[in-house]
């Protein structure tokens, strides 16, 4: 039982985490635009209204600032809100509440407050929704002390990490991946299955080169890694899963082992979080083990275009990841 697994989609794993925590703790509730009867723009919360009622699955007006602000206010007074922002792009409207209020309240008040809220939002391109519905803005939140930032790439991680986020006493930005919502994976049934925030995972062991990736790019990295076995290149794939706090130890150990590292995400390259990861490596003892420059493979520095071919072209492809591996291997 404790180790029982069930196959489900990433989306259903997100829902299961919410449902389990709402059953467990009456202070947990969900609010957001169209999360009730409609079940959310991506159907993540379908059925939750039926189980928990309008009291705990709350449709809001289209007011992102109020959603995030209300979450902060509810959290600091004893609730554990989960606030859904329909697309990550619309966190732009919630930034003051999230950054200046939720993230800073504890510190500004000398440690005499806690703000246990989760802000869920789907990020990423690949759905043909163009420039204002496709961004990957996680780097912004990583730059705000007081926030934790999670980007799960598998159904299992989604469940374990969202449960951890809901139980955490800090504001957590939980970035879901639109294009992974329908991807299935094995998920522990155990209601106490939690993945600690701040623990990365080696998704595939290897010894020649480390690929560090998260979110939508992770499956691509894994696929390439598997394929390269046949070419005699042993690729390790590491998923930090949590961006803040970052599992530096795991990263440094892996890079020390392989001596080569490629970082892959889909956010715009300039100013993205890969720069942080690269710097952590460059500043660490792993620097001396590097046999090749640290390589970032990220999204192009452009808004997300509508045309499907253009849209595809802005994020790293399997082919590009492959080439990157060959390059750092000097092949």
């Amino acid at each position, binding site marked *: 039982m404790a180790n029982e697994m069930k196959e489900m989609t990433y989306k259903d794993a997100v829902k299961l985490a919410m449902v389990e925590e709402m059953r467990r703790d009456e202070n947990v509730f969900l609010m957001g635009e*169209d999360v009730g009867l409609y079940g959310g723009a991506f159907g993540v919360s379908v059925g939750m209204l039926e189980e928990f009622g309008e009291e705990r699955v709350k449709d809001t007006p289209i007011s992102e600032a109020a959603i995030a602000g209300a979450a902060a206010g509810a959290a600091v007074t004893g609730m554990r809100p989960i606030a859904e922002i329909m697309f990550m792009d619309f966190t732009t*409207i919630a930034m003051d509440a999230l950054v200046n209020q939720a993230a800073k309240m504890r510190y500004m008040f000398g440690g005499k407050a806690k703000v246990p809220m989760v802000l869920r939002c789907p990020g990423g391109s690949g759905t043909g929704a163009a420039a204002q519905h496709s961004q990957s803005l996680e780097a912004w939140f990583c730059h705000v002390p007081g926030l934790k930032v999670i980007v799960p790439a598998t159904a299992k991680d989604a469940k374990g990490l969202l449960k951890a986020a809901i139980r955490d006493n800090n504001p957590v930005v939980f970035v879901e991946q639109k294009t992974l919502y329908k991807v299935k994976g094995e998920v522990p049934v155990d209601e106490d299955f939690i993945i600690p925030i701040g623990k990365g995972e080696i998704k595939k062991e290897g010894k020649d080169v480390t690929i560090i990736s998260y979110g939508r790019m992770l499956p691509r990295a894994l696929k390439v890694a598997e394929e390269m076995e046949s070419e005699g290149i042993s690729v390790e794939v590491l998923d930090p899963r949590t961006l803040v706090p970052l599992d530096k130890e795991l990263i440094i150990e892996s890079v020390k082992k392989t001596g080569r590292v490629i970082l892959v995400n889909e956010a715009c390259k300039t100013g993205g979080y890969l720069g942080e990861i690269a710097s952590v490596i460059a500043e660490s003892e792993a620097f001396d083990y590097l046999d090749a420059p640290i390589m970032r493979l990220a999204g192009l520095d452009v808004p997300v275009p509508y045309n499907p071919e253009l849209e595809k072209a802005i994020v790293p492809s399997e082919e590009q990841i492959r080439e990157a591996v060959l390059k750092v291997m000097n092949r």
Partner: protein
Amino acid sequence: MTDIKKETLLEMYKRMNEARSFEEKVSYFFARGMVHGTTHLSVGEEASGVASCMALNSDDLITSTHRGHSQVIGKGIDLNKMMAELLGKYTGYCKGKGGSMHIADVEAGNLGANGVVGGGHGIAIGAALTQQMKNTGKIVLCFFGDGASNEGSFHEALNLASVWKLPVIFYCENNLYGMSVPIGKSMNIKDIAVRADSYGIPGYIVDGNDAVAVYNTVKEASEYVRSGKGPVLIESKTYRWLGHSKSDAQIYRSKEEVEEWKNKCPIKRFRKYMLEKKLATEEELDTIEKNARQSIEEAVEFANNSPNPPIETVTEDVYA
């Protein structure tokens, strides 16, 4: 009140029919997975979108919305380029980079549809500021939905526009729903027009399915606004027949409600009106309808024959 020129009425009828045909075509494409992404159709709202724009001068400006096809067709758009954009083609208004949610033609005064609910409010007041500062005599019409009127950007923009007496019409298309949430659950007022009082500006309510009423209201409002008295808020009451976007099971409303509104079809109503008032003949109107459908077929053909954007354009147009 109705001293609208016949040619204007016919043009209005034409554009309303083009909007309807355009969206029926798009809907067909989506149902068959022939288009990428999503789209938001305004079927049932053609009078609201088209007649409002037609009451403007042709060089006035608009900001449009995610549900903007009727609006921009009302403004007078090249259907070929619009269809091409929807299909992501290089010949489209945005070279295939924008799609349905970002159709724009800045030179012609269409400052863009917007993927962000309430995203047009700020742009509209800025555009109005330009007209005021340059003394162009032009005005701006800012489209938005009932749901958008709950965004902070609505409040900030209306207030600023009022204080600065900017030449802008805030035009709220109240179709009774946000995505799935009925207005009764997103605001505690019956008429969005009352919000005008918060800014000390005139508020109007118009039956958005009555093309003539829409036209006259916007005309009247535009005179007020153009004369330098500041902005106004118009609430246009209407309804969308189709789902919010391509994937909407519409469990939040009843079939009866939708049927009721279909009976209030703005195009049929306008047609009836013109016939009753003898402003046009059956034949004339039939021809217009046929031509409208024809224009859309041609637009599809144009779009289909258009190339995709060259892949290297992906990094172009970020900076000027």
